[in-house]
C-alpha cells in the first residue's frame, strides 16, 4: 500500500532504515534546492526548506497509506517526498519549468500531484487546511477507507480557519488528521510571542479531536503517534498531531535569521532527526555503516540528477499563460492584446 520508498527490510529495523532513507532524501533534496537558488536557476527566492523537520515528514508520511490524501503549507517539499513525490518534477517546478508538476505555474509553494493524493501546497498560512475536511466528507460519502491529512506550521495555529476546520471534523466525525509541524518559528516570531501557550493538543482536545504531541527528532515516535491517530481517524475519530522540531535555516532563502542567537541555533540544530536515526541504526538496529553510506550516496546521486534535470528542462511556452484558468473545453480568458487589437479595429 505504501507509496514511499521501498522497504529495506522487515520489522522495526527495516522501518527505521526506511525512515532514515526518506529523511536523507529530503535533506539532500533541500540542499539542492538551496544550490539551485544560489545558481540563480530557481524561480524566485520564496523557497522554504524543511531541513531539520524531516522527522515530521518521514514519520507521518510513512504512517499514511496509498490513497490517503494531504495538503501542505509552503514548507512542504519534505512531506511530498515522503509521500512519493518525484524529485525531478518537483525540482523542475521549483525552477519554473514546463516539466514541473504544475508546468511551472505553481512553483515551490504550490506543488501538487493528484495521482499521489497531494491536494496541494499552499502559500496562504492555513489556506489548505479546510480542504481536508472536504476530502473527509468525500471519503465518508463515497465509502472509501481513506484519511486526509493537513500539514501546517505552528504559525497556522493562530489562523481561525484551523478551528473552523477542527470543529467540523469533530462534529461530523471525519477521517481527518491535522498535523502541526512546530518548528518553533513563524518567520521571525518565536511561538512564545505568537501564542500564550504552546500546549496546542489541549486546543485540539477542546474541539473534540484525539490529540498527541511528539518530539520530531524521534522519527520512530512520530511514526507511532501518527499511526495511532490515523487509525483513529479512519474510524471516525479525527486527530491532531503536534510534531516539534527546529527550523535549521532561515525562513526563506533571503532570511539569515538575525532574530535568533547563535547559541540557540546551535542547540536547535543538534535536534537532528537524521543524525539521531543514524546513531540508532548503527547502535540499536545494528545496521552497517556502509549500508547507511550507500543510502546517503544514492540520495546525493538522485538529487543531483533532479537538479540537473530542472536546470536543463525547457521553460513553459508563452501560450501556457492562458491555459488552465478553466477546463480545456471551456472558454478561455481573452488575452489583453486581442482586446486591444479588437478595439483598434485591427482584428
Amino acid at each position: 500500500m505504501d507509496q514511499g520508498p521501498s522497504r529495506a527490510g522487515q520489522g522495526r529495523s527495516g522501518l527505521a532504515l526506511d525512515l532514515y532513507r526518506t529523511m536523507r532524501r529530503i535533506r539532500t533534496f533541500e540542499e539542492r534546492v538551496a544550490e539551485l537558488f544560489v545558481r540563480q536557476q530557481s524561480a524566485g527566492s520564496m523557497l522554504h526548506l524543511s531541513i531539520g523537520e524531516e522527522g515530521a515528514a518521514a514519520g507521518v508520511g510513512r504512517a499514511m497509506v496509498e490513497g490517503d490524501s494531504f495538503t501542505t503549507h509552503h514548507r512542504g517539499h519534505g512531506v511530498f517526498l515522503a509521500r512519493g513525490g518525484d524529485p525531478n518534477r518537483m525540482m523542475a517546478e521549483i525552477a519554473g519549468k514546463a516539466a514541473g508538476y504544475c508546468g511551472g505555474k505553481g512553483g515551490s509553494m504550490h506543488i501538487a500531484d493528484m495521482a499521489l493524493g497531494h491536494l496541494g501546497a499552499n502559500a496562504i498560512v492555513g489556506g489548505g487546511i479546510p480542504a481536508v475536511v472536504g476530502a473527509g466528507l468525500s471519503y465518508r460519502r463515497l465509502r472509501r477507507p481513506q484519511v486526509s491529512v493537513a500539514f501546517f506550521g505552528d504559525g497556522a495555529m493562530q489562523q481561525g480557519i484551523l478551528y473552523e476546520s477542527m470543529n467540523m471534523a469533530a462534529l461530523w466525525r471525519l477521517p481527518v488528521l491535522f498535523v502541526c509541524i512546530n518548528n518553533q518559528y513563524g518567520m521571525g516570531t518565536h511561538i512564545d510571542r505568537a501564542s500564550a501557550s504552546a500546549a496546542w493538543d489541549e486546543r485540539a482536545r477542546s474541539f473534540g479531536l484525539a490529540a498527541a504531541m511528539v518530539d520530531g527528532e524521534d522519527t520512530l515516535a512520530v511514526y507511532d503517534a501518527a499511526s495511532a491517530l490515523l487509525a483513529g481517524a479512519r474510524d471516525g475519530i479525527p486527530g491532531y498531531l503536534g510534531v516539534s522540531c527546529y527550523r535549521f535555516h532561515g525562513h526563506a532563502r533571503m532570511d539569515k535569521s538575525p532574530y535568533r542567537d547563535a547559541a540557540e541555533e546551535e542547540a536547535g540544530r543538534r535536534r537532528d532527526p537524521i543524525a539521531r536515526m543514524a546513531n540508532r541504526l548503527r547502535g540499536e538496529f545494528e545496521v552497517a555503516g556502509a549500508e547507511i553510506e550507500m543510502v546517503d550516496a544514492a540520495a546525493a546521486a538522485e538529487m543531483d540528477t533532479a537538479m540537473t534535470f530542472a536546470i536543463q528542462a525547457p521553460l513553459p511556452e508563452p501560450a501556457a499563460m492562458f491555459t488552465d484558468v478553466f477546463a480545456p473545453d471551456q472558454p478561455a480568458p481573452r488575452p489583453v492584446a486581442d482586446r486591444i487589437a479588437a478595439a483598434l479595429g485591427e482584428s
Partner: protein
Amino acid sequence: METTYREALRQALDDAMTADSAITLLGEEVGRYGGAYGVTKGLLEKFGKERVIDAPISEAGIVGAAVGAAMTGLRPVAELMYVDFIGLAMDQVANQAAKIRYMFGGQIGVPMVLRAPCGTGRSGGAQHSQSLEAWILHMPGLRLAMPGTVSDAYHLLRAALRLPDPVVFIEHKALYVRKGELDTQRMDAPWGRAIMRRGGRDATIVAYSRMVHRALEAAEALAADGISAEVIDLRTLNPLDMETVSASVARTGRALVASEGHLTGGAAAEIAAQIQEACFDWLEEPILRLAAEDVPVPVSPALEAASVPTAESIARTVRRMVHR
C-alpha cells in the same frame, strides 16, 4: 408551467441531485430549516443528511470544505446565507477555488457552485443587502451567474452544476417570490450567452438579475413616450457575452448599464468600458451607468429604496439620453 424563482432553484437542485449523486449541499440552515429563504426545503428529507449538510456558522470553513470535496469526487453546492458574508470566505473563494486549476498546472479542477443571495429590499442594512458580484468578476478562474428570471434560475443552476469549474451563483432575494414560466426542457439561451429580453431601436439597456425587470418596466414606460428601448439580460457575468451587447449597441447607438452593485468599480464599469471599446464608432451618446449609490446600504426603507436604480430612474435617464 408557472412557478417561482425560489421553486425553480429548488427544482434545479432536486433534478440535478437526482441525476448526479455527487452533488452535495453544504451550508448554514440548508437542511432542517430548508434554507434561510426556503430554497432547499424538502431536499434533506429527500436526499438524506449525507447529501444535505447543515454546517456550523463557519463561512471560510464551509467554502474551504467544499473546495476539498470538489477535488476528491463530490460536486458540492456551498451556500452563503447572504453574499455579504463572502468577505469571511474570500480567501477560500479567490485564492483557493479560483486558482487551484491554474496553480496546479491543470491537474484538477474545482467543480463547485457557491450560491448566495444579494440585493436590497428588506431593510437588512449595510451587511445584509450588498451586491458584491464585482469582486467575483475581477477574479480569474471563477464563473459568475446572476439569473433574473424563473427560467434562468432553473437552467443556469443546472448548467452550473455540469461545469468543471467553480461557479459563483448569485440569486436576488427580492426575486424569490417572483413568478414566471418554466420549461425544464428548454433553456432561453445557452450558458454564457446574453439574451435580448425586449427589442428596441433607440437605446440599449444592459442589465442582469433584478435590474432586468426594472429595465423592462422602464422600457414599457418609454414605449408610451415613443421611445423604443432594447433590453439585454446578461445572465452570466463570466462568461460575459459582449457580442450580444455590442451588436445591440451598434444598432441603437446608445447604452445604459443598470446594476445593483455600487457604482464605482462595479460590474457596470467593465461593461461600459467594453462597450466603448467595441462600439466606439457607433455611439451617439456616452454610455451611462445606473448603479447603487457609493454608500453602505442604509436601513431606513425610503433611503434603502433610493440607493439603487429603479424603473423610474432608468426610464428617466434613457429619456434624457435619447432627447439630448
